């Protein structure tokens, strides 16, 4: 039988539909649960996520999942607008940087009531459970651990005849490698990371300090900042790191980083980004720990939840969403689809089950995060509100002002602390 409408029927039909829409009637099938999901990430992440969604709906035929994803920069305005409009999706990908803000404003829901029922976390690493807590309550389920890591162009180190850096390499070792690199003359040893907040944090932690205290104040002083800026000034002047002109070409995207542009053999990044960097480069790259401040200095690194699933505070489908979250982090088949793209799975049995099937590079990332040894320290508290502005804006500006010679490290240190405190004290 063929399906045909004449014009009048078509008009009638669509008017009726529009009218139904206007009064909020949706053609719904009584028993279906329509979950909505939102996340940031690449096409590769989207494919893996919808792969899991297909498995989940096959196992739970009454659940439907509508998913949407955005690039990082577009994601946060979009999510905030949706939340502000009372239209937030049920399942929300959340970042360590924003979880406090969203939790404090009840934009995401506490999950403690679901734990042990819909949400099974019995096999989770304790640090990954704790990483999702705000004020003692669980607000996010970790989708994997990662750590900061150096991306290292191994071909460049071979050409310079210098051993490839490993977890024991110090800043002094890198400085010593400068002469060999400058003799080859192709690229510098390392990017200028004076404006990279995770690099500063790692350096501070090795000295027994931190970026922020638990109550959201700065945990380092002007002297630390001046010393940090001076370390990089020394490396800049000696041609160990790249020139300010070159470093300023890096405005954020991976394809503009010094290692991808071929200006330096080392860039500061995260352990789960190895695959993404390799995809952009011909030379082989690997990952290793951030440089030590001295031989045997410890505790710079920590394993942070790379991202979370949270449930919207407005969601009426809390228990269904919790069931999905539990499936996502525990089901073996689902995690074979996911791999380590979002980070190293937090459940020990999942890790064991998926390890043999991983690609060589995924294995490198898995081994790196699992074997940090004495470099590993406790996870710091989530940064306070407004800390994002210090990271994105102030760090970079101060670093560039020193690099381009507009300010000395001695002036920039106290200036940084003063402006950072202003930003933190600002309401709204």
């Amino acid at each position, binding site marked *: 039988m063929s399906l045909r409408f004449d014009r009048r029927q078509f008009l009638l039909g669509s008017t009726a539909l529009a009218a139904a829409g206007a009064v909020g009637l949706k053609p719904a099938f009584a028993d279906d649960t329509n979950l909505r999901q939102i996340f940031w990430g690449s096409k590769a992440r989207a494919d893996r996520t919808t792969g899991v969604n297909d498995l989940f709906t096959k196992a739970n035929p009454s659940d439907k999942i509508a998913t949407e994803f955005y690039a990082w920069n577009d994601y*946060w305005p979009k999510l905030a607008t949706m939340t502000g409009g009372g239209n937030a999706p049920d399942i929300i990908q959340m970042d360590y940087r924003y979880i406090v803000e969203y939790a404090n*404003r009840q934009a995401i829901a506490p999950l403690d009531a679901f734990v042990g029922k819909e949400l099974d976390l019995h096999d989770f690493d304790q640090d990954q459970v704790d990483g999702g807590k705000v004020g003692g309550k669980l607000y996010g389920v970790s989708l994997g651990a990662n750590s900061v890591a150096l991306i290292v162009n191994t071909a460049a180190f071979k050409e310079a005849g210098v051993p490839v850096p490993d977890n024991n390499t110090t800043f002094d070792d890198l400085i010593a490698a400068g002469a060999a690199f400058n003799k080859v003359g192709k690229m510098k040893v390392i990017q200028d990371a004076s404006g990279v907040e995770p690099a500063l944090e790692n350096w501070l932690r090795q000295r027994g300090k931190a970026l922020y205290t638990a109550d959201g104040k700065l945990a380092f002083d002007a002297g630390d900042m001046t010393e940090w800026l001076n370390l990089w000034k020394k490396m800049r002047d000696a041609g160990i790191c790249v*020139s300010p002109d070159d470093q300023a070409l890096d405005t954020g995207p991976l394809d503009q980083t010094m290692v991808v542009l071929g200006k330096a053999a080392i860039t500061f990044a995260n352990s789960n980004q190895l695959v993404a960097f390799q995809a952009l480069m011909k030379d082989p790259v690997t990952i290793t720990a951030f440089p030590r401040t001295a031989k045997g200095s410890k505790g710079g690194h920590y394993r942070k939840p790379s991202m979370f699933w949270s449930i919207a505070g407005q969601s009426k489908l809390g228990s269904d969403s919790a069931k999905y979250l539990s499936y996502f982090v525990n089901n073996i088949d689902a995690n074979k689809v996911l791999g380590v793209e979002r980070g190293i799975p937090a459940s020990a049995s999942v890790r064991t089950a998926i390890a043999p099937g991983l690609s060589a590079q995924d294995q490198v990332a898995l081994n790196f995060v699992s074997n940090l040894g004495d470099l590993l320290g406790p996870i710091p508290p989530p940064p306070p509100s407004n800390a994002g502005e210090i990271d994105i804006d102030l760090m970079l500006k101060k670093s560039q002002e020193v690099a*381009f010679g507009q300010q000395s490290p001695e002036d920039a240190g106290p200036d940084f602390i003063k402006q950072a405190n202003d930003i933190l004290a600002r309401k709204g």
Partner: protein
Amino acid sequence: MTVRPLGVEADAPTAGRTVTTSGWSRFWRKNGTGYAFLSPWLLGFFGLTIGPALISLYLSFTDFNLLQAPTLVGDANYVRIFTADPKFLQALRVTFFFVVFSVPAKLVFALLVALLLNRGLRGLPIYRAIFYLPSLLGASVAIAVLWRQLFAGDGLINKLLALIGITGPSWISNPRYALWTLVLLSVWQFGSPMIIFLAGLRQIPQDMYEAASIDGASRWRMFRSITLPLLTPVIFFNAVIQTIDAFKSFTPAFIISSGTGNPINSTLFYTLYLYQEAFGYFRMGYASALAWILLIIIAAFTGLSFLSSRFWVHYDS
């Protein structure tokens, strides 16, 4: 006398009432169709332009982070902008610099090309299309890539400079020069003022030039005494439009610095700063206040242009 609600004229003189009603109905009969056709635009204008603008005026007196309801804070946003915000001053500096250099340069360049094209060339539509092409590209990722290829340290410009023995800096990432590369980008996209100049030039009566050449006037003299004066309305129009555009300029800096306004905030356009406050840090109230200040600045400049136009713009009539 009892107070009656407006519009209820129970015992008003019948004659008067008939006049009003018939006035309205005459107006409606005459213009109703027109307004009916205009209604989509009117809906958009009130619903999508005036309405949100008024809401943003309200928001500018509040703290609003999108997640929670706005809370009134009086004039605190404005006070902070004018007394304690170095980035606001930096954004103003960058934007004024951009307006002052890009608008005149773009207009002169557009006029020059329009004059060249207005000499009875064959294949004029083709040239016109080619010169308009950069404007169509707008500010896209392709432009960001192209500008990097040209103005980076190892870019094409420096390779050309090297031929004459000059070692150039990385223009696009050096705080001294980065803004200039954006001025150049703006000048390069001279298509729309050029088309308008070209149309203006076409309207100047040929017989004036003929008369002038019979009198032995030089080309320069003809340009000074005929072309320029008769073109002033078009120059004025272009200047106003381009100035407003330059104040609102956003995408070039956004794409080339990935929204950071760096190096050292040297390309922090006003609208880019506004965007950062609104969508980077979710300070919608503060960003709304910034938006209204920009509106007032643009209105002031446009008003000044119109005042000055009395002294230099010649209309035929």
